[in-house]
C-alpha cells in the first residue's frame, strides 16, 4: 500500500485529485503505471461498455491503461488480454498497465467464469482497441496532413509510410484527453496473418512479482487503521445459538468488540493473533442440526428430485433399448468436492459512515456490490468492490462470503477490517462442487455402432452466486438463521450431459435436485468433468462389450473434422495400438504392477474446445493404488493467444483432474463437514504427479478463440477409469478411485 498523486494517465473525469489510495498490484517492466484509485471516486456506477473512454486511457507519456472487467484468477488472462489489446493497438504488451475488476472504474464484463475471459472479454477488448487505433489514425491524419491509408503504427507511434520524420506518438495525439467516441464495431480488425503478439508465448506479467513476494494478493492488503476480524462459526448456518458468554473474551488483550447479529458472531481485535485467539476462546453453545442428507447421499438425490428435463433427444432410445439383445447398464457416482484453494479466502472491508469499500478476490466485483449493500443495509451506489487477486479460485469458493464477513465487522467497528478465513472455515463453509449420480444404458447394434443411449443424472445446483438477497452470503445466512440458494444456473449440471456423438437413438435427461442441505455452487468445469466421466466411461464399456477399439468406436459417431483431428493427433502421439477392448487380463503383473492405457474425448460445453486425452496408468492389484504415469493431450481452442499460457492451463487442468479423480471427496459426520484440513481432504502431491504431460496444441488462426481454463479437465477422469479397465479388466465407477474402491472393483470383475 502506498499513496500517489493522480497522474495524467488517470481517468481525470472520474477521479478526485486528492491523495489517492493505491493498491499496488503488479510490477510493470517500465515502472509503476496508473493504478486503482481510492474512495474519492466521483463515479458511482460502472462505466458504459459503449464508450471507448471506459476501456482505455492514454497518458501524455504514451502509457496505455486498460480498464478490464475480466480479472486475473491465476490463469494468465491479464497477460493474454494485454496481448489482444496490444495487437489491435500496435503497442508492446509491456507498455500496457492494467486495472481490473473495480465496480466503479471498469466496465462490467460479467463475472470471470466459464473460460470466457478470452472468448468473450477478449472480443470486447479487441473491438475497443481497434476503435482506439482507428481514432488515433484519424487524429494523426488531420495533424500530419496525410490520408489514413498512408499511415502506419509501430509500438505506439503513428507515422507516414515512407517518411519517418512525419510522426506522432499516441501521447502526443490524445495524451491525457478523452476519445469522446463510442465503440462503433466498424473499426477494422487486424487479419490473424498479420499478428505479431497474439499467438506468441509472452511471459506472464505478474510472475516476477509472484516469485519474489512483491505481488499484492488480497491477503496482503493493509489499510491505515486496519484491524483483524474472525467469525465464530456454528456447526452449520442454520444452527441455533443456545448461549454466548461475551465476557469470556472481553478481557483478552487487543479485543475491540464482539459483534453479534442473529447467529453471526464475530470478534474484532487489534492484531491478527489476538483475533484468532479470541474467536477460539469465545464461549458459545450451539444447537446443531443433524445432517441426514449424507448417509445415503445418492438415494437421497433420487428421492428429492421431483422434476426432470430432457436435455437432448434423438430417435427412440427407449424402444431401441428394449429391442436390443444385450443392453448394457451402468451407474456412476461423483462426490462433493472442494475448490480447496491453497490460501483460504480473505477480504478487507472499509465501511465508514455511508461509504463501503471492499477488497475482494471475487469473480464478479460488479455483481458483489448488491449482496454487500443488502447485507449492510446501504444503497448499492454507496458500495464499491475492488478486485484484488486471491489464491487460485477454480470457481465459486469462499471469496464472496468472506467479503460479507469483513463488511459486517467493519460496519460494526467503524474501522477497516481484514478477515482471513481459516483452513477449516474454507473447507467447511465454501460452496461445494456438487455430487452427481448417473444411470446409463445403451446397446451396440450388429453394425458395430451404438443403437441406443440413455443418460439420467441427478445433481444439486452447479451455480448459486450471491444476489440482492443477503442470505445468499454466509454472513447474511448467519444473521438470518437460514441459507438461501443464490442465482440458480440450471445449465451448469447439464454441461456436456449430452455428448457430441451422432447417435440415432438417444435420450439425455437431467433430474435437478433443487433443494439440498449442502450448499453447492460452481467448481471448475461445472458438470462437465462429471458428465464426461460418465459418458466417456460408458462409451468405453460399450466398445468393450462389442469388442471394438475404443477410439474406433468414437470415430464411428463423429464427423466434425476438428474432433477427428484432436483424436488422431493424440493417438499418433501416444502410438495408440488399436485393440478389441474386451477385458482379457489374465497375464501376470510385472513387479506387482499392471499397466494400462485409456482414452477419452470431449468437446467442452459441446461448442468450445476440442480435447482428446490418452492416459497411461500403473495399477497395483494387491494394494489398489493407481498411479498416472503419462498423459497425452491434443487440444484445439481456436486461435491461440498465448501458447505457453495455454500449456500452463492444460497442465494445471490435467494435474487437478487427476487429483479430483483419485483422491478427493468431502466427508461429513451427522452434523457437519469433517474434511476440514489437508489430511481430511487430501489432494495430489509431488510424489503422485505423472512422469510427463505431452501436449499437442492445434492452432486455428481463422477460428475464434474459445476458453481453455476448464476444457482439459473433462476427459481426464474417464481416461483414467478406462486405463484402469485396460490394465485390470475392472471398471471403477465411483470417484474418487481410492485403493479401497479399486480393490473392490477388482474383486467384482473376477466374479
Amino acid at each position, binding site marked *: 500500500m502506498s499513496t500517489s498523486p493522480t497522474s495524467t494517465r488517470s481517468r481525470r473525469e472520474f477521479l478526485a485529485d486528492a491523495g489517492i489510495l493505491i493498491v499496488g498490484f503488479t510490477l510493470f517492466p517500465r515502472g509503476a503505471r496508473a493504478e486503482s484509485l481510492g474512495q474519492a471516486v466521483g463515479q458511482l456506477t460502472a462505466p458504459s461498455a459503449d464508450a471507448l473512454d471506459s476501456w482505455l486511457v492514454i497518458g501524455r507519456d504514451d502509457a496505455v491503461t486498460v480498464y478490464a472487467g475480466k480479472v486475473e484468477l491465476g490463469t494468465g488472462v491479464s497477460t493474454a488480454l494485454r496481448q489482444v489489446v496490444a495487437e489491435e493497438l500496435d503497442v508492446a504488451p509491456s507498455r500496457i498497465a492494467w486495472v481490473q475488476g473495480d465496480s466503479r472504474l471498469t466496465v462490467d464484463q460479467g463475472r470471470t467464469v466459464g473460460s470466457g475471459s478470452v472468448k468473450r472479454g477478449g472480443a470486447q477488448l479487441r473491438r475497443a482497441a481497434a476503435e482506439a487505433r482507428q481514432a488515433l489514425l484519424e487524429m494523426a491524419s488531420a495533424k500530419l496532413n496525410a490520408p489514413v491509408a498512408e499511415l502506419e503504427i509501430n509500438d505506439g507511434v503513428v507515422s507516414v509510410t515512407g517518411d519517418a520524420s512525419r510522426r506522432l506518438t499516441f501521447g502526443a495525439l490524445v495524451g491525457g484527453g478523452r476519445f469522446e467516441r463510442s465503440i462503433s464495431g466498424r473499426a477494422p480488425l487486424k487479419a490473424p496473418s498479420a499478428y505479431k503478439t497474439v499467438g506468441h508465448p509472452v511471459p506472464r506479467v505478474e510472475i516476477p512479482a509472484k516469485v519474489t513476494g512483491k505481488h499484492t494478493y488480497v*491477503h496482503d492488503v493493509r489499510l491505515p487503521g486496519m484491524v483483524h476480524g474472525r467469525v465464530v462459526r456454528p456447526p452449520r448456518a442454520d444452527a441455533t445459538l443456545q448461549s454466548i458468554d461475551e465476557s469470556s473474551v472481553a478481557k483478552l488483550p487487543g479485543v475491540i468488540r464482539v459483534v453479534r447479529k442473529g447467529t453471526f458472531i464475530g470478534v474484532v481485535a487489534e492484531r*491478527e493473533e489476538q483475533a484468532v485467539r479470541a474467536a477460539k476462546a469465545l464461549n458459545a453453545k450451539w444447537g446443531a442440526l443433524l*445432517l441426514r442428507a449424507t448417509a445415503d447421499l445418492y438415494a437421497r438425490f433420487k428421492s428429492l428430485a421431483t422434476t426432470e428435463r430432457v436435455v437432448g433427444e434423438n430417435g427412440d432410445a427407449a424402444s431401441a433399448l428394449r429391442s436390443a439383445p444385450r443392453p448394457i447398464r451402468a451407474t456412476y457416482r461423483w462426490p462433493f468436492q472442494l475448490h480447496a484453494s491453497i490460501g483460504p479466502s480473505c477480504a478487507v472491508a472499509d465501511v465508514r459512515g455511508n461509504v463501503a469499500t471492499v477488497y475482494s478476490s471475487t469473480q464478479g466485483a460488479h455483481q458483489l456490490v448488491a449482496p454487500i449493500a443488502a447485507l449492510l443495509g446501504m444503497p448499492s451506489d454507496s458500495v464499491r468492490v475492488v478486485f484484488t487477486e486471491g489464491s487460485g479460485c477454480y470457481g465459486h469458493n469462499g471469496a464472496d462470503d468472506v467479503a460479507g464477513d469483513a463488511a459486517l465487522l467493519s460496519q460494526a467497528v467503524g474501522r477497516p477490517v481484514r478477515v482471513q478465513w481459516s483452513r477449516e472455515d474454507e473447507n467447511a463453509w465454501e460452496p461445494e462442487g456438487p455430487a452427481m449420480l448417473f444411470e446409463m444404458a445403451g446397446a451396440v447394434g450388429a453394425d458395430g455402432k451404438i443403437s441406443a443411449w440413455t443418460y439420467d443424472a441427478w445433481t444439486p445446483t452447479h451455480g448459486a452466486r450471491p444476489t440482492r438477497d443477503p442470505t445468499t452470503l454466509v454472513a447474511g445466512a448467519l444473521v438470518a438463521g437460514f*441459507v438461501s440458494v443464490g442465482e440458480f444456473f440450471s445449465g451448469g449440471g447439464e454441461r456436456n450431459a449430452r455428448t457430441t456423438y451422432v447417435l440415432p437413438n438417444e435420450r439425455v435427461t437431467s433430474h435437478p435436485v433443487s433443494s439440498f442441505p449442502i450448499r453447492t455452487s460452481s467448481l471448475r468445469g461445472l458438470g462437465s468433468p462429471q458428465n464426461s466421466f460418465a459418458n466417456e466411461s460408458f462409451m468405453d464399456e460399450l466398445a468393450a462389450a462389442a469388442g471394438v477399439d475404443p477410439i474406433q468406436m468414437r470415430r464411428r459417431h463423429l464427423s466434425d473434422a476438428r474432433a477427428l483431428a484432436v483424436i488422431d493427433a493424440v493417438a499418433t502421439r501416444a502410438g495408440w495400438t488399436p485393440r478389441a477392448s474386451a477385458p482379457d487380463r489374465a497375464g501376470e503383473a510385472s513387479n506387482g504392477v499392471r499397466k494400462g492405457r485409456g482414452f477419452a474425448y470431449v468437446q467442452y460445453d459441446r461448442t468450445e474446445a476440442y480435447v482428446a486425452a490418452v492416459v497411461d496408468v500403473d495399477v497395483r492389484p494387491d494394494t489398489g493404488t493407481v498411479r498416472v504415469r503419462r498423459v497425452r493431450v491434443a487440444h484445439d481452442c481456436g486461435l491461440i493467444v498465448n501458447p505457453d499460457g495455454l500449456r500452463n492451463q492444460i497442465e494445471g487442468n490435467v*494435474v487437478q483432474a487427476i487429483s479430483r479423480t483419485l483422491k478427493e471427496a468431502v466427508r461429513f459426520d451427522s452434523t457437519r463437514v469433517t474434511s476440514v484440513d489437508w489430511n481430511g481432504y487430501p489432494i495430489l502431491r*509431488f510424489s503422485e504427479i505423472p512422469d510427463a504431460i505431452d501436449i499437442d496444441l492445434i492452432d486455428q488462426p481463422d477460428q475464434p478463440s474459445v476458453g481453455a481454463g476448464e476444457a482439459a479437465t473433462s476427459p481426464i477422469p474417464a481416461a483414467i477409469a478406462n486405463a484402469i479397465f485396460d490394465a485390470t479388466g475392472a471398471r471403477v465407477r465411483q470417484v474418487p478411485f481410492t485403493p479401497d474402491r479399486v480393490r473392490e472393483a477388482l474383486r467384482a470383475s473376477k466374479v
Partner: protein
Amino acid sequence: MTAFGHDHISVETTATMPQPRTAVRIRVNGVDHDVSAEPDTPLLYVLRNELSLNGPKFGCGLGQCGACTVHVDGTPRRSCVTAVSAVAGKDVVTLEGLGAPDRPHPLQQAFIDEQAAQCGYCINGMIMRAAALLARTARPSRDDILSAMDANLCRCGTHMRIVRAIERAAAAGAAGPAGRER
C-alpha cells in the same frame, strides 16, 4: 431455505489463555528487529503484519501445506506453527531475502524462465523448500526433488513446471541457497 433435519446436538467451543506480550529480537533477512508479541505468536503473523513481508503466506495454520515456509538457520520451517519466541537469536530468511524482481535469486529466475506459477500463492513455499534442497544437494535427481517437495501443496497443478524450474536452477548451478545465506 433448504430442507434441514431437526435433531439438536450441543457443540461447545474451548478456550485458551494468552501469555503476556514481551519484546523479542529476531533477525530477518540479515536485519535485527525488536518486535513486541506474545511468545507463542506464530512467526508468520510477525513477518507479515509487523515486518510487511508478504512472501510467506497463510495456507492452513496447521503446518500441512507449506505456503508459509521460511528458512530458520538454513532449514525450511513452517512459520505458521513456529512460535516467534522459538526463533529468537536465529537467522530467518524469507522469500524477499532470496532476491527481488530486479535481482532475482537463480531459483526465482528459473521459476520465471519456466513460467512456473499460476495463481502463485504456494510459490513462496515451493521456492523456499527448493532453495533448502539445492543448498543440501546441488544436483538432485528427479526423485530427490519429488521427495523434497512432497510436503508442499499446489492446487493449480503447476507441479510439472515447478519440478522443471528446480531442475533448471540446479543445472545452472544455483546451489548455495539463498540470498544472503550464500
